[in-house]
C-alpha cells in the first residue's frame, strides 16, 4: 500500500493530474469520515474534504516522501476542519444541543440483552447520539477522539497528525472519553 501510494505521489509531482485522482479515490472515504465527525454536517464536511485534497495537490512538493502519506493528508484535513469550526462556533453549539434522543438513554437502548423490536431505528438513534456527543466536545478533544476511534490510528500517528507530544494526545483522549461518558450518561 505505502509503496503504491509513493509511486502515485511521484507521478503527481511530475505534474500528472490523473494520478492524483487515484489518491483521491484511495482516501476520500476516510478523509470525509474525518471531516464529517469534526463538523457534523455533510455539506460542510464535503467542502472541507475537497479543500483538503486540493491543498494536498498544491503542496505535494512539501510532503516528505519517507513519511506516511495518510498522516500528512489527515493533518491537512484536521487543521482545515478546526479552522472551519472556529469560524462558525455559534452554529456549532446550537447543533450540538439538537438531539434526536430526547427521553431515551443510550444505556437502556444498547445494554439490554433482549432483541429490540425496532432495532434498526434504535441503532440509528444510537449513532446519532454518539455523533452529537462527539460534536459537543471542544475541538482539541474532538480531533483526538475522532482520529483514535473513527480512523483507528495509533497514539504515535495521532501525535504526528496533531503535531503534539504523545503525552498530550493521551491526556486529550482521556478527557474526551471522560466527557463523552458523562454525555452518554445524561442522554
Amino acid at each position, binding site marked *: 500500500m505505502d509503496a503504491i501510494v509513493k509511486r502515485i505521489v511521484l507521478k503527481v509531482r511530475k505534474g500528472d493530474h490523473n494520478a492524483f485522482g487515484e489518491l483521491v479515490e484511495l482516501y476520500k472515504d476516510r478523509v470525509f469520515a474525518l471531516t464529517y465527525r469534526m463538523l457534523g454536517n455533510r455539506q460542510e464536511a464535503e467542502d472541507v474534504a475537497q479543500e483538503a485534497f486540493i491543498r494536498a495537490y498544491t503542496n505535494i512538493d512539501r510532503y516528505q516522501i519517507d513519511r506516511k502519506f495518510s498522516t500528512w493528508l489527515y493533518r491537512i484535513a484536521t487543521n482545515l476542519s478546526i479552522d472551519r469550526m472556529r469560524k462558525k462556533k455559534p452554529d456549532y453549539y446550537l447543533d450540538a444541543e439538537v438531539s434526536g434522543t430526547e427521553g431515551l438513554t443510550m444505556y437502556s437502548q444498547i445494554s439490554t440483552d433482549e432483541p429490540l423490536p425496532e432495532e434498526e431505528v434504535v441503532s440509528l438513534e444510537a449513532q446519532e447520539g454518539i455523533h452529537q456527543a462527539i460534536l459537543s466536545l471542544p475541538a482539541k478533544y474532538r480531533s483526538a477522539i475522532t482520529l483514535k*476511534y473513527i480512523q483507528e490510528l495509533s497514539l504515535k500517528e495521532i501525535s504526528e497528525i496533531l503535531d503534539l507530544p504523545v503525552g498530550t494526545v493521551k491526556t486529550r483522549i482521556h478527557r474526551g472519553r471522560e466527557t463523552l461518558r458523562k454525555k*452518554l450518561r445524561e442522554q
Partner: protein
Amino acid sequence: MKCPAELIVLMHEVLDEEATNEQRRELFDHLQTCDDCKEHYEELKKTESFLLSSPSMKAPDGFTSKVMEQLPQEKRTVWMKRWMKSHPFVTAAVLFLVLMAGSVYSSWTSEDQLSALSGNLRFEQDTNTVIVPEGEVVEGDLTVKNRNLEIEGQVKGDVLVINGEQYMASAGQVTGEIEEVDHILDWTWYQIKNLLQDVGNLFSSEEEKK
C-alpha cells in the same frame, strides 16, 4: 468510599492498551472491591464501544470528479506525454510528416544548383538559362535548379528541372526521362517517389544478394 484520581488515569491507560500487566491487575483487583469504580470503568468501556461501532462513512457521489475539476491546470508537457502514449501511431505519423516537410522544404529553398557528371554547359546570365550546346554530349543525369534549361545537344540520362523551364531544341536529344518540378507539392511528391524507389532498390538488391 472515595477512590484516588490515579485510578481513573489507570482506567484510561488500560483502555489505550498502554498499561503494564501489573497495572492491569492492580485495576481489576480494585474494580472487584469498588462498585463506583466498576461502574465508571464500564461506562468508559461502553463509550469506547459506541465510538468504535460508528458506521463507516462513504464520501458523497462524484466526490473525486469534483476535486479534479477544482485542481489547478496541470503542466502542458505532461498532458502531451500522456496523449502521445495513448496515440502512438498518430504521434509517429505526425513526427514523420514534420521531419519530411522540414527536409523537403530545406532542399527546396537551398541554393541554386546544377549538377551534371560530364560535359560542358553554357550559362546565360540575362535569361537565367543553362544551355547544353549543340554537339555537346552530357553523360549521365542532369539536374538544374532554379534555372531554365535549353537542350541543343544530347543528354545520355534523365533530365530534371526544378523551379525552371526546359526547352528542347529540335536537334536536342535526351535518352532518359525529362521531368519538370515547379511547385513544392511536386517537389514533395518527387522526393517521396525517390524515397520509395530507394527503398524498392534496397529490397531488390537484398534479394539479389540471396
